[in-house]
């Protein structure tokens, strides 16, 4: 009893220690559970896996609802480097079909991106390999397969129009937070200009995984998951059959064809040659083929229809005539002689009687005639100076959308050139240039530059007698089952409709009259109108150009053809344009004598 009393107060020490311990634990719990949120994040990192759901990109149909681009499922092998651990590298390399060095390189690449986040290890495994790899994948922690879609092209045409897709680049990721490493994005063509329409919207699935990275169901029963929304389909203006035929005709030639439906501005065909099979730029072969195509000296990736700029040559005489008529310095009855003082600076290259009327001059493409037209426009007394009259001329020319871009639905396009008066001021000195100084413009040479698309549009304007719709590639967008038609702007030139009739008469004589420059290619069933051009090329043989539309009344197609280094416009460009018109209007037609000649012509590597 005494002893007990002696030490009883020691219980206070004991109780004190117990309460102190309880308090230390409480403070510690307060800190880690209520103050520090690091653990909350770590728990989420441990258990949550964010899986992107990639939507199918929109499909592309031609004007006849013929499928041009669709999707095929592909499988990307993904890797999360941190989770890769104790795998049989040799077996793995064998399974995927890569060497050990490649394996090391790919792992370093993935680790440089992130150790914790998944990135693409091997792009687009084929369907056959996928089944095989998937079965064995459980042996290789850290790897999984992500489903993707690949673009497929039923026929190997229209590569330049459709464009291609590829993995986003770091600047693209920086510019738009929608994209994450490994996403695909349109890199050229419609894939690029309609990227936001056809890409759809990515979805997100949040999965829970256990300590062995095995899936354990959806996070919060999928409350925060979003579904991938498929991309919208594009209905484009291209006629796949015409496009294919045009590509065939342009085989082994350098140049371009652009065909437009004048009444709508819809581009029926747009060929740039040499071209490439769009199937080359998909999947695992893309980067290899891309390197091959981009280093090819013939520049197959270069879209000449939109980016190449040529002097328009004699085809520009049509614009000369229209501007002259509008300015009332020219009437259909005006005649100019091929010889004498008036023809001194620019001589006639043909043999014909003289003087010619306007329609005859167009038919025979008489150079002195149009020099005289140009001279009368620039030297018009109405204007106080050459500069003033030139500015007026330039505005009229530019109302044909020359020297400027269309700002239409193509990702790239060149503006061509109609020289600014300041250019001549700088070159010749202010007020020290006259119509004589800039006479090359009258026959479409000199500083004038046009693109094949602009030329086709000029043809469409003539076919329409004075107006055009902005040329475009997409007619409608399929949004959730319904088709939304896009409206395009109608624009008028500054030349009155009535002045187009004599020019059109001249153009029809190009086919129909005895001296017409394309008289060999006339077709009895279609009344065609055209104009040849031969562009002087200081670097080699002349470029062959031809503009045409048909039928003369109520035109269905307006076309421009440029064949580089082919000589006279009448030799190659005219027959190609004629064949295209026949194909589009008649579909099936009796093959004229010159089709085989064109198909067999090789201007790139002639034997």
């Amino acid at each position, binding site marked *: 009893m005494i*002893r*007990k009393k*002696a*030490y*009883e107060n*020691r*219980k206070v*020490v*004991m*109780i004190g*220690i*117990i*309460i102190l*311990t*309880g308090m*230390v*634990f*409480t403070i*510690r*719990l*307060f800190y*880690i*559970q*209520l103050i*520090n949120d*690091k*653990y*909350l994040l*770590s*728990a*989420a990192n*441990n*258990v949550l896996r964010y899986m992107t759901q990639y939507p199918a990109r929109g499909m592309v149909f031609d004007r006849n609802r013929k499928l041009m681009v669709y999707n095929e499922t592909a499988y990307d092998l993904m890797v999360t480097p941190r989770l890769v651990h104790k795998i049989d590298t040799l077996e793995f390399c064998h399974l995927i079909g890569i060497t050990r060095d490649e394996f090391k390189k790919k792992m370093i690449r993935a680790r440089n991106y992130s150790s914790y986040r998944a990135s693409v290890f091997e792009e687009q495994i084929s369907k056959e390999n996928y089944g095989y790899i998937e079965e064995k994948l459980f042996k290789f922690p850290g790897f999984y397969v992500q489903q993707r879609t690949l673009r497929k092209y039923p026929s190997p045409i229209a590569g330049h129009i459709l464009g291609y897709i590829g993995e986003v680049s770091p600047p693209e990721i920086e510019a738009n937070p929608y994209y994450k490493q490994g996403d695909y994005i349109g890199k050229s063509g419609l894939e690029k200009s309609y990227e936001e329409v056809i890409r759809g919207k990515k979805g997100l699935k949040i999965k*829970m*995984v*256990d*300590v*062995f990275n095995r899936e*354990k169901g959806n996070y919060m029963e999928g409350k925060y998951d979003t579904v991938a929304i498929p991309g919208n389909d594009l209905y484009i203006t291209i006629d796949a059959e015409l496009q294919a035929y045009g590509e065939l005709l342009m085989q082994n030639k350098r140049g371009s064809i652009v065909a437009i439906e004048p009444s709508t501005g819809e581009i029926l065909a747009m060929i740039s040659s040499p071209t490439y099979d769009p199937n080359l730029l998909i999947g695992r072969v893309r980067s290899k083929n891309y390197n091959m195509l981009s280093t090819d000296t013939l520049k197959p990736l270069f879209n000449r229809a939109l980016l190449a700029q040529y002097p328009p040559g004699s085809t520009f005489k049509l614009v000369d005539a229209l501007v002259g008529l509008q300015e009332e310095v020219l009437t259909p009855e005006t005649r100019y002689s091929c010889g004498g003082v008036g023809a001194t600076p620019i001589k006639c290259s043909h043999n014909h009687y003289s003087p010619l009327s306007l329609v005859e001059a167009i038919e025979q493409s008489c150079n002195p005639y149009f020099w005289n037209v140009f001279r009368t426009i620039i030297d018009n007394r109405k204007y106080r100076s050459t500069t003033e009259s030139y500015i007026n001329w330039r505005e009229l020319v530019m109302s044909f959308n020359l020297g400027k871009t269309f700002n239409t639905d193509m990702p790239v396009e060149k503006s061509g050139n109609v020289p600014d008066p300041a250019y001549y001021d700088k070159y010749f000195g202010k007020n020290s240039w006259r119509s004589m100084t800039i006479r090359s413009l009258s026959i479409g040479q000199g500083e004038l530059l046009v693109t094949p698309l602009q030329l086709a549009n000029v043809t469409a304007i003539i076919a329409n007698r004075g107006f055009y719709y902005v040329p475009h590639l997409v007619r409608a967008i399929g949004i959730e089952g319904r088709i939304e038609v896009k409206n395009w702007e109608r624009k008028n030139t500054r030349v009155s409709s009535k002045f187009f009739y004599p020019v059109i008469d001249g153009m029809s004589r190009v086919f129909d009259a005895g001296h017409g420059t394309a008289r060999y290619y006339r077709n009895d069933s279609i009344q065609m109108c055209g104009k040849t051009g031969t562009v002087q090329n200081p670097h080699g043989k002349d470029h062959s150009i031809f503009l045409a539309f048909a039928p003369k009344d109520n035109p269905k197609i307006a076309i421009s053809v440029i064949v580089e280094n082919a000589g006279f416009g009448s030799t190659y460009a005219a027959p190609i344009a004629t064949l295209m018109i026949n194909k589009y209007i008649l579909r099936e037609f009796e093959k004229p004598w010159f089709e085989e000649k064109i198909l067999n012509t090789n201007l790139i590597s002639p034997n």
Partner: protein
Amino acid sequence: MKSRTNIGKNIDWWLVTIYLAMVLIGWISIYAAVYDEDHKSILDLSQNYGKQLVWIITSFVLAMMILLTDTKFFSAFAFPIYILMLFMLVAVLIFGKEIGGSRSWFPIGQFSLQPSEFAKFATNLAVAKYLSSLNMDLKKLKSVLRSALILVIPSLLIFLQNDTGSALVYSSFIFVLYREGLPGEVLIIIFVSIVLFILALLVKPVWVIAGLVLLTVVLVYLSRRNIRNMAILVLILIISSAYVEGVSYGFRHLLEPHQQSRINVLLGKDTNLQGAGYNVHQSLIAIGSGGFTGKGFLNGTQTKFNFVPAQSTDFIFCTVGEEWGFIGSIAVISLFVALLIRLIILSERQRSQFSRIYGYGVVSILFFHFMVNIAMTLGLFPVIGIPLPFLSYGGSSLWAFTILLFIFIKLDSYRLNVL
């Protein structure tokens, strides 16, 4: 005989209620920790929670049997029970089965029994028996050494089973000895030497000694009028400096590299998250992500998807922390604090010295488990594998803790009959 007819009489229902609450929380937490979609029933005997139910029911039977036993039995058979347990501890070293690196299990059918768990209450009985003997005085070295011997034998045998955690439990009897008259200075010296030991390994010995010198200078200045005290302080400084230097030297030159690294992990110097640090890291994530109210029952992602190792046994507190949050954690800690304080109060009201010492033994053992286990899961203490009493999964530990507690409840209920 009176007590036999009415075993409920004089029983401390506080203790029984806290005990039942803890066992229930444990069972639910084990269910949450092991839960998977394929075995939804909490009664599924193929799963740990189903098995735990069996252990709980059998524990109740054991508790009943203890309450029905005559009080004198425990005091009379204290040493025989202790000796029997020592035999078991030796036997398990020879015939036992090794699980998780420790040879401490007797396989019985599909279950296993762990004698080291039962050695705790047996040792407690022996200590109570010895310390309550008449010629006992803990101021005498002989008495201290004899009591120490009773503790060291089972501790050593368990250490040989490679179960360091359970072996360390016996050090908690220092509190019992303290309560029974062990000079307070001994407690302080032991405490100081443990602190210095850890410091010597954690930081450079030079800094520890520098700190000690500084402390001595301050103390010498304060006691500058007393020459004798000053001399003692300087002597203490010399001894402790030598001790620190010795520990450090021994660590660097006498231990093998793998032993050094094991100690470094214990001291938290080795923070390799893939290695030994992994458990604590995942445990902290589980508890820390619980927040104020927790993620809700069966919604703990850390525990449910097995990120925390040993989550139904040593790390059971993680499940509580993750699913029931700060509220739940505080509740469990409060239950333990309440249980321990209640046990101290009850021990102090015992007339029989045996009962009181036994009661303090229960407090010491439970407190040691509580402190070390929770401190370990909260990252305050090295990972030492010992269970959280009444909550952790395991038949042997639940049985043993139930026996440990209910012997005291029985002794307490009989306190008025002791003259």
